[in-house]
């Protein structure tokens, strides 16, 4: 019984349906940011992976000196695991292909943006920046 339950659970975790669900939540998060972006700027036409990549690679030097850029923790290759530059804790890759669950929980996504943007950029990220970042990572 327990073995069966464990197998079922494993199948559920790894199933295409679960991954598709994570995808669906990711799309919902992007939709919410798009609505905010349109409200802030009526000329907004959509998110851009290229802008997201520029955001990711730029040396901001705006917040904590230990995290001048996103790459300070996530490395230049988002498909690789990173390391928290403050605590040394290993970090799962930022790329959605490597960590499909990363962009599935809106509360968690918001928490990470509000914390990490302050630390790297020294300010909050806009809805456009948040959507651009996820769009970039969704293609990685």
């Amino acid at each position, binding site marked *: 019984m327990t073995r069966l339950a464990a197998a079922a659970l494993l199948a559920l975790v790894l199933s295409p349906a679960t991954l598709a669900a994570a995808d669906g939540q990711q799309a919902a998060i992007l939709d919410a940011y798009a609505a905010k972006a349109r409200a802030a700027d009526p000329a907004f036409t959509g998110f851009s992976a290229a802008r997201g990549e520029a955001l990711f690679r730029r040396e901001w030097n705006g917040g*904590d000196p230990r995290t001048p850029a996103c790459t300070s923790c996530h490395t230049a290759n988002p498909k690789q695991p990173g390391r*928290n530059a*403050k605590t*040394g*804790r290993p970090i799962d890759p930022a790329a959605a292909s490597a960590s499909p669950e990363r962009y599935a929980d809106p509360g968690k996504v918001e928490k990470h943006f509000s914390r990490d943007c302050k*630390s790297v950029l020294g300010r909050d990220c806009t809805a456009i920046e948040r959507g651009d970042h996820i769009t970039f990572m969704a293609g990685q």
Partner: protein
Amino acid sequence: MTHRILWLLAILILAYPGIDARAGGKTLPPVADPLVANLCGECHMAFPPGFLPARSWTAIMATLDDHFGEDATLPGDQARAVEAYLTDHAGDAPGGGARREFMRWVAPGGVPRRITDNPAFLREHDFPERVWQRPEVVTRSNCPACHRRADRGLFDD
């Protein structure tokens, strides 16, 4: 016969890490609450609450907006649950047992914030600077960089 029993006892004491805690203070119960483990463990190892007195955890949880330079604010209900767990399992909480060991350095009424300020920690981690400079270490509070079973509360390696 008596000899054999004594030997057996000695082996048991050496093999059982819980007993080691009472002798040398090398183990502490890890965080057992999944919410606390997840929320604290998102950015750093979820430190065993027995390393600090309850008033330290209260002070730390009251200043999460500047948590060692990081904004670690949590929603109110989560923050309350985490604080309750940390203070209930703090080094000076009732029934502390082995955890009392870590309270000896704390001045009466003192509110230490850093586990790494404990003189016992400093004594046991008196390494040359190049050890601290290893890329996987990053900071002195990164226990699991060297203590591979730190997540289970074992710091004897």
